[in-house]
């Protein structure tokens, strides 16, 4: 090793102390809700006529995503683009207002880390017990407790992987196949890889994911404003003029402390002990801070026990903390960035809702056959050909009728395929369509319309304008000369 030291910072193990308070309660509520939704959703049955009866299923094989009564087809991929955009802007918007709320309460890394810490707490006990256990030699107790908690974490990880895979297949069937050894090797592979990744990220790497892997920590500074609320330590109140001090004899009451210039922080270290990323919030805003609010809970507990005012650590803005006359912390949304994000969010969300709300039950694509563009028939008619592709996006078998508008109905002839076409739910059909026009009519016709509608819903017709090609359009000058 060189004298410059190791290239890597060795991880200092973090043993978090448990804490009670409103942020802890909120985090627990989010965890319970998120886990309930994530783990239970694949098992929710739903009445379907054309696919497995599962409320949420991403059926890659039939290329359909079932989300309750919404069926998403590959053509709807731009919904995903909109969704991603909305998610990104929502993140920026929230960060501008209250900092890394996503990180602290909702991020899956946070949730699984929380869950794994809970497991450790259950098996190995509170922080001092865990630290003692880590130091003691490998005896049966240590093997049992450490091994047991890691086994439990791996199990949770594997169940997470299993649940993830269950979204892509019929869950009850997959469950039966999985445990009877009948499932496809890909299924086992996916569950094991996802399970181990979950265990490694949430059980071993933990806060290192937030600090070293996640890019969010690195760009939070760009998104924070002077007015952004974040868990902050009130330095002025905590330190006073002579700094923080432990409450030894003569420094027990606020009056005694203030007389000697000490602030309200009794340097108990509780806020550091509860922090899942091992941050000392009293050093100010740091990129390691995921804004979970547990230090606020910790400090409030201490303030309550001493009978002092809460909020030595609180959600507050940088500007307010610095100000000579601090106001009560409140959301400040009146700046260009936040309003801009809000507007973008509103527009994109409306676009998504509108697009999903007005989705059509039938997808129609029409291509003109270009080899050749037109052809002369023996009875002097001119023929154009089109490939009409109809996708039935409903949940039932439908009959689709194809008609023409703007030219005589007799001009329409179907080569391959039947008109009306019967298409099963979620399936598609390609019709080879021929349109024959008399020469004099072809002369006048530059375009016409195809009208496609399902028999069940004749009022919801899809109208597509297409071109009609004939000789005159290409040799116009020549015929003019003749």
């Amino acid at each position: 090793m060189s004298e410059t030291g190791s290239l890597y910072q060795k991880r200092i193990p973090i043993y978090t102390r448990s804490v009670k308070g409103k942020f802890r309660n909120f985090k627990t509520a989010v965890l319970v809700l998120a886990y309930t939704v994530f783990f239970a959703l694949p098992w929710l049955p739903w009445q379907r006529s054309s696919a497995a009866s599962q409320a949420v299923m991403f059926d890659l094989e039939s290329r359909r995503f079932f989300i309750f009564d919404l069926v998403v087809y590959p053509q709807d991929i731009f919904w995903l683009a909109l969704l991603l955009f909305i998610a990104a802007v929502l993140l920026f918007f929230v960060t501008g207002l209250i900092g890394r709320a996503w990180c602290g309460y909702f991020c899956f890394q946070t949730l699984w880390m929380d869950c794994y810490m809970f497991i450790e707490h259950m098996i190995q006990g509170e922080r001092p017990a865990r630290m003692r256990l880590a130091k003691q030699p490998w005896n049966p107790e240590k093997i049992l407790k450490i091994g047991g908690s890691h086994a439990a974490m791996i199990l949770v990880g594997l169940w997470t992987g299993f649940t993830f895979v269950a979204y892509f297949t019929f869950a009850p069937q997959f469950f039966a196949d999985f445990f009877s050894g009948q499932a496809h090797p890909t299924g086992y592979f996916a569950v094991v890889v996802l399970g181990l990744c979950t265990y490694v990220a949430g059980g071993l790497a933990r806060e290192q994911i937030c600090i070293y892997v996640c890019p969010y920590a690195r760009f939070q500074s760009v998104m924070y404003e002077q007015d952004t609320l974040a868990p902050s330590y009130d330095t002025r109140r905590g330190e006073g003029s002579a700094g923080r001090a432990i409450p030894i004899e003569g420094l027990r009451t606020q009056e005694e402390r203030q007389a000697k210039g000490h602030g309200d922080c009794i340097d108990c270290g509780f806020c550091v002990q509860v922090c899942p990323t091992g941050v000392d919030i009293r050093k100010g805003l740091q990129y390691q801070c995921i804004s979970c609010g547990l230090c606020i809970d910790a400090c409030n507990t201490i303030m309550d026990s001493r009978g002092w005012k809460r909020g030595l650590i609180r959600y507050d803005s940088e500007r307010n903390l610095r100000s000579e006359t601090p106001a009560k912390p409140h959301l400040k949304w009146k700046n260009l960035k936040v309003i801009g994000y809000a507007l973008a969010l509103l527009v994109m969300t409306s676009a998504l809702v509108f697009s999903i709300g007005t989705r059509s039950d039938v997808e129609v694509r029409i291509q003109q056959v270009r080899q050749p563009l037109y052809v002369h028939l023996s009875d002097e008619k001119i023929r154009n050909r089109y490939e009409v592709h109809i996708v039935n996006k409903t949940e039932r078998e439908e009959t689709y009728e194809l008609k023409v508008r703007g030219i005589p109905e007799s001009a329409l002839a179907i080569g391959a395929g039947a008109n009306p076409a019967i298409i099963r739910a979620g399936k598609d059909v390609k019709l080879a369509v021929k349109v024959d026009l008399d020469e004099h009519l072809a002369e006048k016709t530059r375009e016409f319309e195809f009208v496609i509608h399902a028999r069940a819903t004749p009022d919801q017709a899809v109208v597509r304008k297409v071109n009609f090609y004939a000789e005159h359009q290409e040799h116009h000058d020549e015929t003019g000369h003749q």
Partner: protein
Amino acid sequence: MSQDQKQNVPTTGHVWDDDLQEATNPLPNWWLWTFYLTIVFAVIYWVLYPAWPIGKTFTKGVGNTISYTARTTDGKEVQKTTHWNMRSKLMAEMNEAQAAQKKYIVKVAATPLDQIPKDAELMQFVQSSGKTLFSDNCAACHQAGGQGKLGLAPNLVDDSWIYGGSYDKIQQTISGGRNGMMPAFKGVLSDDKINQVANYVLSLSGEPHDAQAAKAGDAIFHNEGGCVVCHGPDAKGNQDIGSANLTDRIWLWADVPGQSTAEGKLDEVRKVITGGVSRGKMPVWSGRLTPEQIKVLTVYVHDTLGGGK
């Protein structure tokens, strides 16, 4: 690296150009472990896949054989099992693809031609498989979209069929081929008479012509020239022998639509009568294509392209 740090870094002791030194900084651990992993991967790969040359042979890989069915040049099917290699993998994948198509091919074989278009699912197969077959075998003459080429191969997209456009006739044409010909009239008829017949032929489809000459041509067509024998008294041709219908505006051998002047059109027709037609050859496809492939092509030509009459 800054000047003061430079002094502290241990070096190998190698110095070039007075001050250029070789530092001995440790490799990052993640890099090192990734490197070890690639070595482990390589060893596993050597065992499982063909790897080391040994004299004139090589290690074949363990537990990684590929089996496939191949067809020899004389049409015999043979089962082969070899060590892992890309060519055999392709063969095995082709076998799989063929097996996947099998159910449709069996269905094509069992379904009468005119019933195939009524089966929507089967028709999807015919449309995609037919397009490939057509591109591979037919497009060289009939062009990619089946639009044909004047003076070479008929247009399959229109409704004019030299040998008939029914399913049976198209199937017959593909499997048995066709050999269309027209005798040359040079020497049989005088140039003048050929000119008159050409005027008559143009008059049949309403093209510009000399009415006087056409009238004389009419007589030659029906008597001296003997054109009626093949083209019929109404000049509408005969699909049984493949003689052209001269009354419509569809041309195969004489490029009448391509000429803008009356003289040019007349010249085109005159050339065909003088020299005859000897290029109307459609090759025989039975034997080269399976009966099912011919059936698929028949339906493709009939329904997706032109057909009907």
